[in-house]
């Protein structure tokens, strides 16, 4: 039952408008990176590339970028280990407390970030401060890993559900030990899911600010640098350049991940939109 012509036309129009609404602001902020002047007035009168050089030479930007990369790598590594272990347990075992674990994996992303951030800060300050653990890269990674676990978990779990547990058993029957089964049977099946999960976890960590503000102490990740700098009128041109850079940088791994997760539209939705999925699974 195809929709009538007029309906189709209206739908196309509506879809086009919504897409324009989504992309125009990104386009505009992208253009600002080429704005010669310090003032943010629209339209842009003179275009130039000079702020790219300024941003590149800015040491605080480079430090923040480096810290964001380190935090992203650390959080992704931790999330890979924790998420894979949890998904293996959930996919291959029925046990007491299974639902509680599913719930605990989801919770960090379902609750408002300010709650998570506040909770982590209170704990680090009160419990770890006295034993000499301070805010820094370590605590940033802890915070990020906590909500990145779910991304890896979802990707791996979805894959595990599509692969048969009997393969593991067959491997064991043929004399492989657990490690060998993981290395030679399970891992090849999970590889792309792990890679997609890792890319998404990295992207999530790289952009996070709401929790990071509470756990970073004196350290500045790139989003925190931006948040601090956008209140200083003279530095806005550098913020614009960094904004463009961040848009490009965070979109690439997502594109790659959605390709990795494979074929059709629905599967892409399922695999790529882990942010959305996270909440979906929070059905107790």
């Amino acid at each position: 039952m195809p929709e009538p012509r007029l309906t189709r036309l209206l739908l196309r129009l509506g879809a086009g408008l919504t897409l324009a609404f989504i992309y125009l602001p990104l386009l505009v902020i992208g253009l600002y990176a080429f704005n010669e002047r310090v003032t943010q007035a629209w339209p842009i009168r003179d275009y130039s590339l000079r702020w790219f050089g300024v941003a590149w030479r800015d040491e605080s930007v480079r430090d923040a970028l480096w810290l964001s990369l380190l935090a992203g790598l650390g959080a992704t590594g931790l999330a890979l280990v924790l998420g894979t272990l949890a998904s293996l347990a959930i996919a291959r075992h029925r046990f007491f407390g299974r639902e509680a674990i599913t719930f605990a994996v989801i919770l960090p992303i379902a609750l408002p970030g300010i709650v998570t951030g506040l909770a982590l800060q209170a704990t680090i300050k009160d419990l770890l401060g006295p034993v000499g653990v301070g805010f820094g890269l370590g605590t940033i990674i802890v915070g990020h890993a906590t909500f990145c676990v779910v991304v890896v978990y979802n990707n791996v779990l979805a894959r595990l559900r599509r692969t048969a547990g009997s393969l593991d058993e067959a491997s064991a029957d043929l004399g492989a030990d657990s490690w060998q089964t993981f290395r030679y049977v399970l891992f090849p099946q999970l590889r792309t899911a792990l890679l997609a999960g890792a890319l998404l976890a990295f992207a999530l960590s790289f952009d996070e600010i709401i929790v990071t503000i509470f756990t970073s102490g004196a350290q500045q990740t790139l989003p925190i640098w931006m948040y601090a700098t956008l209140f200083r009128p003279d530095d806005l041109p550098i913020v614009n350049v960094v904004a463009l850079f961040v848009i490009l940088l965070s979109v690439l791994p997502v594109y790659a991940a959605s390709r990795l997760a494979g074929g059709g539209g629905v599967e892409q939705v399922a695999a790529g939109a882990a942010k959305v999925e996270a909440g979906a699974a929070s059905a107790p």
Partner: protein
Amino acid sequence: MTSVAVVEPPPRRGAGRRLSSFLYRHPRLRLGALLALPVGWLGIVYLGSLAVLLLSAFWKTDPFTSQVVRELTLDNFREIAERPVYREVAWRTVRMAFLVTVACALLAFPLAYYMARVASPRTRNLLVVAVLMPLWASYLVKAYAWRTLLSEEGAINWALDPLGLHFNGYSTTGLWLVFTYLWLPYMVLPVYAGLERIPQSLLEASADLGGRSLTTFARVTLPLVFPAVVAGSIFTFSLTLGDYIAPSLVTSDQFVGTVIYRIYGTALPTAAAYALVPIAVIVGYLLVARRLRAFESL
């Protein structure tokens, strides 16, 4: 899967092997080994932190130094309950979350419908990626982009100027636009997935029975996709409820997130008590959503 046939595992001996067989014979232990790290992490690091926060809602604050004093009290809850401002701010925030949700649903629907039922498979895949991308593009950059767009000399007022119009961007209405923008993809994707799951045959059956397209839409499509809209609304709602960055960029109105963020540094117990409000609202919302079968549509 082919790797099973191709790779021949080299035989291994020794402790690792014995441990492995032992674990295989004791599935409970194997499970324990799998779970130890993730449960330890989430249980101790995360739930433990939440417990510390919850507990601090019962501590006192020194009225001069603003230091937390570890004496139990219910004063923080009394403060939240008795000062009308906390209720007003919570109410304002919930209202904002509701309006953002409505706007997201209205904007998402045509796009999702087009993707699911009109577009060719090739266009559809492109559109899915096109919606996914901004979902992952930096939240802060998007909020910052809107701060720039909404300013007096920004692109929006530039576009309105020839029409003789003017929009006061740094306002509650401006914030509503920003939130709608930020969370829109979270609504599009579930609605799209919900629409795509409706079997074509059902719509044909409705047409065969004489239902005109509008009737079919109202009586078949909408009820079937409604749970998906509710599912999407979980995000638009909960994300709006806890945000403090976007409000700080475009308005000076108070919202739950901004109040908590403002007071936590020198009144952590009050902030912790107030943080229970968004938690309660979201848990309540999830329960309602479950009733409406929203989770099944995700």
